[in-house]
């Protein structure tokens, strides 16, 4: 039984100071129901992807919280898997449909971050890290800086090549009205931006963002519908110290291999992908972990524009990615699915990839401790 995506919606991403998580979720859930062509009361279960509602907002029990807001009394639950919370919520919703228990389910990803001080957000995000690294004072930019250094050392990856990831993603975001940053940037701007954790500069890093995204998944088959042909997840050690190789995320490799197998497709079949570029180096590693480029060759491929819009083989992060569209952590995984769903439907406007018929999403939690991969088919 295939799982069909009936609708997909994202809110505006950015500093949404006058909007609460309630408003955000209501906005995307109602719009998703509207697009699916039915009222919300057809929803039989709600899966909420969110990371920080407890540590930053003091609000636990998020399933019932949003269920109340939407006027529903169906099973509803918060799924937390750090920055992969959204992808994991979709994965569990997918399994819930597959089980035959529910016909129509709502997946919502939401995060409200900009109401809090950056240092409070950075500390809360480290809840996704290992105890040892947290106590040592590491933050995610520091951990990804270590990963970047390891990749530079092993494969000769340059800071300039990493900068090109951000340049490309800002270019894509300039075509996305829902993106947090719609300004185009240059390699020089990235290279000259303030250093956060060497070699990562501020323009190598994804921002703090408010936003929500929603999907309605269904067991109802649709003519010309978009289906989820694979949904897989894997985990790895929380900390970097326990890993044999820092230049790859084992969980992403494992989950994507299982996903390709489930969907019966190969990496070269994918036309459009949304990957977890929380830092520029993360997109380079994602390209290699997903099998799009041989190990050590993704950086130069990105530098040559091989994953930018206008390319006929593969376009990556048409939304602008986490870097430019924004990274409301619990919403990111759902937003990635919405973006690929819209690409396959052919409704992506100026950022439409022509002929997109097979897409992939790659959502990472922590510094690679959770990976969730989805493959969508037209």
């Amino acid at each position, binding site marked *: 039984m295939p799982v069909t995506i009936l609708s997909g919606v994202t809110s505006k991403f950015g*500093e949404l*100071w*006058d909007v609460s998580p309630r408003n955000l979720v209501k906005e995307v859930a109602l719009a998703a129901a509207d697009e699916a062509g039915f009222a919300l009361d057809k929803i039989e279960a709600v899966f909420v992807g969110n990371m920080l509602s407890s540590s930053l907002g003091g609000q636990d029990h998020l399933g019932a919280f949003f269920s109340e807001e939407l006027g529903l009394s169906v099973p509803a639950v918060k799924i937390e898997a750090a920055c992969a919370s959204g992808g994991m919520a979709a994965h569990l919703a997918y399994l819930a449909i597959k089980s035959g228990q529910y016909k129509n389910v709502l997946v919502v990803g939401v995060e409200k971050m*900009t109401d809090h*001080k*950056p240092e409070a957000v950075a500390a809360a995000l480290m809840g996704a890290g290992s105890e040892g690294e947290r106590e040592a004072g590491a933050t995610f930019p520091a951990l990804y800086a270590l990963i970047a250094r390891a990749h530079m050392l092993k494969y000769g990856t340059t800071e300039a090549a990493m900068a090109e990831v951000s340049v490309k993603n800002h270019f894509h975001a300039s075509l996305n009205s829902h993106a947090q940053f719609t300004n185009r940037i240059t390699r020089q701007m990235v290279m000259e931006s*303030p250093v956060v954790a060497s070699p990562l500069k501020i323009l190598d890093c994804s921002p703090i963002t408010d936003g929500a995204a929603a999907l309605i998944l269904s067991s109802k088959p649709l003519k010309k519908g978009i289906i989820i042909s694979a949904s897989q997840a894997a985990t790895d050690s929380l900390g970097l110290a326990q890993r044999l190789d820092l230049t790859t995320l084992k969980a992403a490799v494992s989950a994507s291999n299982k996903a390709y197998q489930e969907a019966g497709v190969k990496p070269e079949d994918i036309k459009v992908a949304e990957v977890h570029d929380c830092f520029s180096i993360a997109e380079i590693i994602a390209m290699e972990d997903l099998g799009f480029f041989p190990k050590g060759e993704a950086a130069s491929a990105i530098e040559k524009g091989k994953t930018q819009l206008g390319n006929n083989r593969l376009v990556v992060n048409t939304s602008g990615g986490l870097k430019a569209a924004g990274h409301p952590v619990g919403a990111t995984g759902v937003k990635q699915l919405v973006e690929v769903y819209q690409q396959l439907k052919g409704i992506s406007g100026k950022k439409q990839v022509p002929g997109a018929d097979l897409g992939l999403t790659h959502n990472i939690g922590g510094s690679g401790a959770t990976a969730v991969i989805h493959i969508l088919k037209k």
Partner: protein
Amino acid sequence: MDAGILGYGLYLPYYRIKTAEIAPVWGKLASDIERSLGISQKSVAAMDEDAVTMAYQASLDALLDAGINPGKIEALMVGSESHPYAVNPTSTILGEFLGIGHSYLATDLEFACKAGTTALISLAAMISSGTFSTAMAVGSDCAQAKPHDILEYTAASGAAAFILGTKHKAIADIVAITSYSSDTPDFWRRDGVRFPSHGGRFTGEPAYFSHVENCGRQLFEKSKLTARDFRFAVFHMPNGKFPKEAAKRLGFTEEQTAASLIVKDIGNPYTASSLIGLAAALDQAQQNDLIFLVSYGSGAGSDGLVLRMTKNAGKKRNGANYQERQYRKKYISYLDYLKFRGKI
């Protein structure tokens, strides 16, 4: 309204610290900070100075400039967000030191960076109503900033005082006043907490700009004047960029704000910021010049007032003007800064 400024005085401490001195301590490039805040130095009060001593210095100059006996002051209001005491008014200490006597209304005001302008418009309204004939409004701050907070580059010290009276002796008539307030928690300090907290970028658009622009537009409407009618435009200056941007949005030119842009020399002495800016504009204003002023206090609100210079304007002042206050200064190290502000 029947109220105007009879005289004014300002006080700046002797010490300055440069952005280039603070930035390297925290691993920042001074050029990055200067570019993002539009600020390169700020004034620092000495170890033995606080909001009271600076208010006293500015008030003495104001009395001298107005040429009136302290005993004539019937009301004294002091605005500050660094009153040395939580309970025990700055205004009575000041009144005693100045020798105002005891038959006067004294009160302290606190409204982040706009308490001083609130003192000014409140007293102007009381004078215009005939309740008092002479009064003094003071804004004074030893601005607090936590080490390593972005505020550390801007939070400065200074004071300004204004003697208010009825129109006939005024150097500047107060033509119109207005205010704009809302519950916007962009910057705060809880009782007993030493340093203020702030909402980072939230202090911009929904806070400073929203209030300053709305208050400014109200003031245009109320005074039936437009930006081009004014020779000077004065704003609260939390950093070097915000006042320039607010001025631009309200239709003012750089020339109109140049005289009052004191932030480039002394940073942001909180309550005293727009008042010292006003004093710097008054230093240069001639008969019939119009001055536009909009302050901003976090929490949040803006006061606006329009002043028209009278025939008494332009005469030689008693007391040092803003430019003269710049000549006497000394640049200090970050360590001295910490010591002077009692942080070590």
